[in-house]
């Protein structure tokens, strides 16, 4: 266990160093700034008009757009980047558990995504604070931040696990997030089908956070939202399965790298 922690920490540090100097980071920083810029434009053009569904708009933009996209960019890279760069050989011929490579790299990427989402959320909410219908800015922003961080953890772990399983996790991840989940959670499909999406549980998590701004977030939900604790538990289970599954897969898989 001590060896695992040491290796995870070492890989986490180096991955953080490398990720912060990558083109991916620059792109993702621009992506994270997107909601702030859009919010500023909305505020500028709206002036002091009332009745604008600012929380729903912010939710769509950050929780349903930027969060899964950032999680996909960084989560899918956890293993596939090492494979495509052909550097995984160096890590897999060191006396460390292979799972430490998976967890260390995922933690570093998750930390970056979380930081970017926090900036994105607080920034957007600050710009749109006048449209929160009297709800507290800090309370709303905090509730949103903890929700998107939960979402980022689950999505990125899911995509990281996917990266240990398939060759092109980005394509599969895009299809899952922006076709399957997006349709499922936004279309008025009867029954409990929305329960199959991570978004539904994120929506339940924030709507029951106690922050006033997010009370009406069941606007598009055709299913009744579930309790906050239950929503958190579902995410925790998916997160755990993804991390354990990814670690197990990577421990057994043989990677064929060409010269």
């Amino acid at each position, binding site marked *: 266990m001590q060896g695992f922690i040491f290796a995870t920490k*070492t890989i986490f540090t180096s991955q953080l160093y490398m990720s912060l100097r*990558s083109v991916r980071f620059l792109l993702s920083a621009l992506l994270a700034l997107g909601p702030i810029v859009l919010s500023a434009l909305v505020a500028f053009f709206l002036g002091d008009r009332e009745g604008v569904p600012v929380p729903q708009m912010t939710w769509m933009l950050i929780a349903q757009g930027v969060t899964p996209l950032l999680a996909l960019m960084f989560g899918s890279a956890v293993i596939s980047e090492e494979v495509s760069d052909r550097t995984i050989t*160096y890590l897999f*011929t060191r*006396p460390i558990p292979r799972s430490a490579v998976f967890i260390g790299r995922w933690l570093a990427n998750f930390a970056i995504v979380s930081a970017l989402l926090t900036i994105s959320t607080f920034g957007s909410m600050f710009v749109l604070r006048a449209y929160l219908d009297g709800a507290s800015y800090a309370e709303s922003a905090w509730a949103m931040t903890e929700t998107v961080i939960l979402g980022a953890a689950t999505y990125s772990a899911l995509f990281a696990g996917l990266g240990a399983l398939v060759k092109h996790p980005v394509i599969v991840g895009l299809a899952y997030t922006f076709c399957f989940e997006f349709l499922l959670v936004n279309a008025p499909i009867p029954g409990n089908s929305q329960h199959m999406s991570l978004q539904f549980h994120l929506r339940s998590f924030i709507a029951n956070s106690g922050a006033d701004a997010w009370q009406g977030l069941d606007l598009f939900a055709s299913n009744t939202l579930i309790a906050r604790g239950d929503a958190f538990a579902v995410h925790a289970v998916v997160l755990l399965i993804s991390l354990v599954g990814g670690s197990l897969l990577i421990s057994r898989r*043989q*990677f064929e790298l060409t010269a």
Partner: protein
Amino acid sequence: MNDLGRWYGQVVGLNDLSLEIGEGITGLIGPNGAGKSTFLKLIAGEIRPSRGSLRVLGEVPFANRALFARLGFCPQQDALYERMTGMQFVSFLVRLSGYSQADAMKLAGRALERVDLMEAAHRPTRTYSKGMRQRVKLAQAIAHKPELLVVDEPLTGLDPIARESLTSLFKELASEGTSILLSSHVLHEVESMTNEIVLLHRGRLLAQGEVREVRDLLSRHPRRIEFSARSPRKLAGALMELELVSSIQVSAEDSRLLVETSDAGGFFRALTPVVASGDFGVTSMECADEDLESVFDYLVT
């Protein structure tokens, strides 16, 4: 290893390989596609055999952490962490062998010095030349002082000075007690480092032993030698006198001569006085099938 086999779908990487490799430097020779890299990846525990068994330093290698602490692997692929400096690259990988930051830096520094890369140690690896990249790859493999060093095509793409320097380094490491297994498709490269070679061809073991024994095999290989001369017909007449010549083809248009001999060594010994005795105007001479591929093809048929 015993009855070792490894295939990729329908493609055979290695087949029926049974051999034992001892201490010192062992050269793994074979043309491209012979299975050298597959063999080394199996030894370095990167992949598992499809059939048979394999032990390295007494251990089953695949994902074996106990073995990896005693092994250094320098892969063939030209891949580095491009955003790291040479020092960061080596020290990061040494740290993963369980060393503290300070010890890892010390060991990385020593390894970079040994491969003569200390001056560029603080430059990002993306700025390195081919030779420097090869050397930093080697530095990460030797920094933690492994008992066994596995190196895939270490001299490919290097200039003669860099080759000489790495060759000396391998000899030095071997004299310090490190066992080295290295691959190459050029026999004379390996010959300058060791006598012990393993010959692979199309995934099979062709021969194992001292270079001299393999050289004997090679000298019995019929060779074709191409000459360019001002008087090709005159030269052909002189060469026909030699018993070792099997056939001669003369192309008067471009003054070329293609000679086939059953004993290349004997032919070359007899050639010098013949060429020196007459005015044939020989301007060039080269072996038409010197490459290992054709030699291996001969040996397996």
